[in-house]
């Protein structure tokens, strides 16, 4: 699998993402600077987390207008897989590659902790190594992760099976107590129509080995490796 990680001014999870991808896939991803207008030959494009442009104006808004994003859009249309993590997810909604918007957390605070997620389907390149019956534990670290979409969009997402992850309790209940940020329907991540673009607030790249407190992030990259090689 050939992966590319796009780096913007203010990206700060780029190294973590590069390290995780290399460690798990055994191959160094290509780094792409935001001013590029072309992407290298790759199967997976990752938009890493961070505070691009300080998250000023709206999180991910300015990065979403970078020259490179046109190329990402084009590549997505051509069928490449795109993974947006945290700030990357915000960029994907800002460019319209994914519907909805990520608003300020409901209690207005930045929140860093591990959360439990349900894997809503495990037949995508991103989740094929997960089980849908067992919640996974992944860290979040964001200020603007409160997923909003209007009723119609929400119904469509649900109807088309495009909810990727939901915040749940340890036992798998998607209730309010498990919702860290006010997201509608406890949504933590969503897919594009063709299931090839995934945006998610939690950071799988941060929990890929027991030494860090868990390895539930690992299967995502293992699954991608398997699916895209």
């Amino acid at each position, binding site marked *: 699998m050939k992966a590319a990680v796009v780096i913007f001014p203010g990206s700060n999870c780029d190294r973590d993402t590069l390290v995780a991808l290399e460690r798990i896939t055994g191959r160094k991803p290509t780094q792409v600077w935001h001013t590029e207008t072309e992407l290298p030959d790759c199967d997976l494009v990752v938009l890493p987390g961070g505070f691009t442009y300080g998250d000023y*104006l*709206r999180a991910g*808004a*300015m990065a979403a*207008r970078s020259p490179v994003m046109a190329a990402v859009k084009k590549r997505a249309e051509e069928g490449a897989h795109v993974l947006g993590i945290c700030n990357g997810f915000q960029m994907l*909604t*800002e460019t*319209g590659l994914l*519907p*909805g*918007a990520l*608003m*300020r*957390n*409901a*209690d*207005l605070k930045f929140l860093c902790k591990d959360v439990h997620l349900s894997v809503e389907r495990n037949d995508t390149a991103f989740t094929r190594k997960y089980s849908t019956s067992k919640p996974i534990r992944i860290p979040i670290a964001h200020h603007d992760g*409160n997923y*909003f979409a*209007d009723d119609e969009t929400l119904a469509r997402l649900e109807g088309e099976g495009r909810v990727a992850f939901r915040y749940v309790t340890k036992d798998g209940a998607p209730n309010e107590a498990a919702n860290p940020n*006010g997201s*509608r329907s406890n949504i933590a991540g969503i897919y594009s129509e063709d299931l090839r673009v995934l945006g998610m607030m939690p950071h799988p790249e941060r929990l890929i080995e027991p030494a860090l407190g868990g390895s539930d992030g690992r299967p995502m990259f293992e699954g991608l490796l398997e699916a895209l090689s």
Partner: protein
Amino acid sequence: MKARVHVTLKNGVLDPQGKAIEKTLGNLGFKGVGDVRQGKVIELDLDETDAAKAEAAVKDMCEQLLANTVIENYTIELDAA
């Protein structure tokens, strides 16, 4: 020419900041305050002196960057002063 852009959340879009302000105002003892909404105001200095052209340019900026039209509305005020 100066331009002032108001960016506000569309009706029906959740406004966590507005809600939090409303709650805190209540805690502070302010009674009878409802429907608090928070928006942005962006002020710009434009070299452009022609009002119509300036307006068109600012509209472009709003569409391309200043507002996320999925969730936000915007209004533009120009001030030739």
